[in-house]
């Protein structure tokens, strides 16, 4: 082994416990801080998309990866946040510090309203009600658009204009979400979530209220997701129902599957993968000379690629990119010895 052993309880709960980890973390922070000054416009925009995606992906990871509940209403919740922001901005000219908490409140309220009926039974019922949530929120939003005459969408003036300002704002949001989630997962709530994911009956026998844990997971995840929707509205400067199709939900599901279930790092890696994949495909098609042939069906190529990536990860690497990362790390840690498959 690497010769590092934990001898105090504080080391067990610390987020960064060894000096090496702290060193790497410091380098990582410096790299993140320097990134916008080194990257060109495209890469800066991609980084912004990743950071925005991380907020939503971490929220979904809390619900699906840790608490073990499937959500098919992620796009609906993002839409709820984005439209709360859009409506407050358009009707009352509300500033950011009002729209962000309002979005979170709407998200939490939706999470509570749609989570409650599903508690009477175990199993897939939460997933089912989230599907209903998606369609109802989208319908309400579309109704608002047509009634108020914004049939193409709502235009929002963002308080931030420059890309690198956005970079730091989104970095702060993503870092806050990750830190909040990591802390939550080390608390009683987080342990209860993992317990109900493992087996509900056992969790109940241990004194965990399964309904309470389920609803708290759904409400917290929904609130964060709605805040991500609020940021999305400001980032795009434009809100329209077309942006929140079921495909968006599938993209977020892809992020957590590809990244690796039950890991915050997985959510981050998965987001990077999912955001970069369409650009990689575009590059590959241009390189292969297929760009003209397939230009009208690029979205279909993306669909198929996402589906294929998800299937391959589910079948061959259920632990996702994080699983690969751990294996590579262990190979170096154990070198020159070979690692045996540890389950």
């Amino acid at each position: 082994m690497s010769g590092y052993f934990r001898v105090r309880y504080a080391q067990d709960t610390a987020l960064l416990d060894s000096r090496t980890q702290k060193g790497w973390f410091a380098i990582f922070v410096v790299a993140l801080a320097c990134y916008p000054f080194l990257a060109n416009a495209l890469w800066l925009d991609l980084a912004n998309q990743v950071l925005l995606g991380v907020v939503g992906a971490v929220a979904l990871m809390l619900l699906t990866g840790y608490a073990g509940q499937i959500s098919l209403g992620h796009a609906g919740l993002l839409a709820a946040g984005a439209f709360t922001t859009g409506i407050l901005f358009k009707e009352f000219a509300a500033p950011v510090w009002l729209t962000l908490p309002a979005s979170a409140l709407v998200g939490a309220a939706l999470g509570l309203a749609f989570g409650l009926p599903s508690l009477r039974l175990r199993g897939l019922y939460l997933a089912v009600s989230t599907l209903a949530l998606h369609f109802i929120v989208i319908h309400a939003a579309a109704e608002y658009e047509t009634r108020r005459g914004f049939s193409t969408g709502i235009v929002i003036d963002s308080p931030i204009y420059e890309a690198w300002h956005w970079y730091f704002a989104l970095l702060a949001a993503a870092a806050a979400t990750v830190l909040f989630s990591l802390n939550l997962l080390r608390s009683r709530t987080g342990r209860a979530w993992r317990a109900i994911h493992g087996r509900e009956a056992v969790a109940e026998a241990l004194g965990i209220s399964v309904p309470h844990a389920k609803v708290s997971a759904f409400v917290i995840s929904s609130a964060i997701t709605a805040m991500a929707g609020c940021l999305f509205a400001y980032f795009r400067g434009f809100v329209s129902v077309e942006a929140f199709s079921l495909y968006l939900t599938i993209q977020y599901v892809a992020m957590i599957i590809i990244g690796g279930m039950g890991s915050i790092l997985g959510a981050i890696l998965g987001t990077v993968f999912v955001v970069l994949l369409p650009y990689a495909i575009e590059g590959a098609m241009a390189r292969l000379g297929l760009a003209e042939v397939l230009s009208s069906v690029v979205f279909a190529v993306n669909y198929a690629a996402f589906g294929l990536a998800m299937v391959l990860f589910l079948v061959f690497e259920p632990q996702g990119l994080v699983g690969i990362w751990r294996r590579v790390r262990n190979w170096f840690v154990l070198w020159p010895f070979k690692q045996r498959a540890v389950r």
Partner: protein
Amino acid sequence: MQLAVNILVLAAIYALISCGYVLIYRVSRVLSLAHGELMMLGAYGLYLTASLFDGHPLVAVAAALVLAVLVGVAVYLALMWRMTGESVLAAVLATIALGILLRGAMILAFGTQTQHPLRDLGWSNASLELAGARISTVGLTLIVATLAMYGALFAFLRLSRWGIRMRAAGQHPLLAAQRGIGLHGIYAASWGLATLTGGLAGMLLAADAGLEGTLVTIGLKAFPAALVGGLDSLVGALLGSLAIAAAEVFVIHYVDPLLSEVVPFVVLLAMLIVRPWGLFGTREELDRV
């Protein structure tokens, strides 16, 4: 009278689609969210065979149905059997992944323009006058096909050896396996059957309204019908479809046509509050440690 006919046609559509959800859930406890896409694939199967067996429409339809069964079995053998030992979560996520993969692949293979398989078969969709109400030929075929399909499924599950095995596997997989029932064969057969019914629904819908991407949305809208009736009951699926279709047609007629997209889901939510296991579903057993 016209309203009643509209309700019947819509209920037949929902019932024919939702029995696929029920079959798969009842036998293998997997919620298939790729059903809409499989349905569409069945319709594209008819589009293919229609051009292949030009001039023999009945042969083409039969070939398309066989193709649908093969697709269902292939889906199980290629992907879903790997998910049998995994958690429910992994299986559902796998069907989501399969759905988006199929959607992309279908657009790449067949393009985005609307197809009309009925025209390719050389049949027309005449409008019939029936006791003071109008119904299209395809609509009438839909009702007849749904009734025939449910009759056949009941007979199959009650009387045939394979049907009894299927119910046994659904009731208690472990005991069924120890009794000598090959679970993989049963699961593959249930996927084949579900894709057959879904494919038939897809073909009829495509014959009525043309073959395009909106088919998938109809597949999703049939899902509340299965759940309102109870996810593991075929009778429930039939009555659930009738309830959802009635609610939808009434709302379209008396309130607002724009609401048609949400009505099934509102009914679903109401059902989840009142009786979450559905009209005829079995309450899930207590989990023992």
